[in-house]
């Protein structure tokens, strides 16, 4: 049985740890809130852009004919090589987040590889880098120290690497593997197709009989011309999607850390209780022993 003093030492140490995990939990809560706000704030831009791309692609595509590819980033080629953009965090102590994301990325990549399509990685986050170190997959680029609230200026280089690789023919397909923020308790690794861009179909021009056709079906005038607009919109759209997935990854990181730290704090609290019981037992055992010693000593002296 450990001595009372040893137990006290352990209790002090666990109490200190508990203070730290509690603080980390509270910090994560505040950061999570801000990260979530940024995710929501970025949505109007991307959904409007998606809508515009859909309009141009549908209208210009209908005019040009299906065989014409309006822009290289829309081009569906035969896939011979795949690029995976892996989103992880720099820091740990966020539970199973990075492990799960990495596992999903590797499962996907091995599947591609076994199907005869080699995979190369673009990694975001130190944990992803460390995780890929023990695999054979080539790393095209690594990005760390993105920060908690990055601007698009910070995240655009990542998109640029993927775009350039696709345009150069180095890869024929690119996906993002990132932890999707489902809820505070649930972050799900998700595989999101990034390139080639799949333009959403805009509403068809044929109006249903009886339905008042809105001016939506009227042709938008395009200035200077559809192709130039697409040549600006499409790369920008890729940048926006990379930006959004990073924002979501960050929100997932804070959420996972909050939960992990809360569990750690609860475990520490339980441990302190157990140690306290153990200490009390040890103390009582000592007292009992001393009483026995004193009384048997007195008895030996023949009271």
């Amino acid at each position, binding site marked *: 049985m450990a001595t009372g003093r040893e137990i006290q030492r352990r209790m002090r140490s666990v109490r200190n740890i508990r203070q730290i995990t509690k603080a980390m939990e509270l910090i994560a809560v505040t950061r999570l809130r801000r990260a979530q706000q*940024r995710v929501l*704030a*970025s949505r*109007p*831009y*991307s959904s*409007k*852009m998606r809508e*515009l791309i859909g*309009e*141009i692609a549908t209208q210009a595509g209908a005019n040009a004919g299906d065989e014409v590819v309006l822009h290289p980033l829309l081009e569906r080629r035969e896939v011979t090589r795949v690029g995976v953009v892996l989103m992880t965090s720099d820091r740990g102590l966020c539970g199973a987040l990075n492990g799960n994301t990495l596992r999903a990325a590797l499962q996907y990549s091995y599947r591609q590889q076994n199907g005869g399509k080699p995979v190369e990685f673009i990694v975001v986050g130190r944990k992803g880098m460390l995780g890929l170190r023990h695999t054979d997959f080539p790393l095209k680029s690594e990005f760390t120290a993105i920060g908690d609230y990055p*601007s*698009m200026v910070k995240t655009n280089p990542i998109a640029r690497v993927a775009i350039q690789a696709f345009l150069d023919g180095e890869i024929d397909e690119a996906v993002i593997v990132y932890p999707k923020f489902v809820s505070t308790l649930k972050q799900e690794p998700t595989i999101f197709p990034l390139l080639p861009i799949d333009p959403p179909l805009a509403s068809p021009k044929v109006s249903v009989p009886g339905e008042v056709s809105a*001016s*939506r079906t*009227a*042709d*938008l*005038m*395009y*200035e*200077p011309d559809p192709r*130039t*607009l697409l040549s*600006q*919109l499409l790369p*920008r759209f890729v940048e*926006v999607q990379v*930006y959004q997935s990073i924002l979501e990854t960050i929100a997932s990181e804070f959420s996972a850390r909050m939960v992990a730290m809360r569990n750690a704090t609860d475990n520490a609290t339980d441990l302190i209780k157990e140690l306290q019981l153990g200490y009390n037992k040890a103390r009582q055992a000592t007292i009992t022993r001393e009483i026995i010693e004193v009384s048997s000593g007195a008895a030996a002296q023949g009271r």
Partner: protein
Amino acid sequence: MPLHVEIIAAEQPILTIDVEVVVATTVSGQISVLPQHEPLLTLLAPGELRLGRGANEMFLALAGGYLEVRDDHVTILADAAERAEDIDVARAEGSRERATARLREARSNVDVVRASSALARAVSRLKAADRYRSRGVTRSR
């Protein structure tokens, strides 16, 4: 019937407002959008954006982006947007000087393109800030 204008930047929405006229700088020149404008989607160049209602005017400096007009709804997807009154003139001037220097020293086509767009953005910020100042109540040139 006024124009309902939404200016949205990639990181967050900037402004939602009802105005009577929108004057924007496109790659093909300046355009004025009034109610009942034809549906249009146009590419914006770095420059000033003017929003007017009656005697009131608001100026913003846009770094570029896209403008859509449809059913008296104007949506501007801005690469970056700053209100005239928020512009840090000293910073914008610094940007302009740096861009001009880079343009002078440009060694490749890429350098020229980058430096000239940085210059255009800095100039548009300075112009917008200047407009605000010259219309301001307290200051005179």
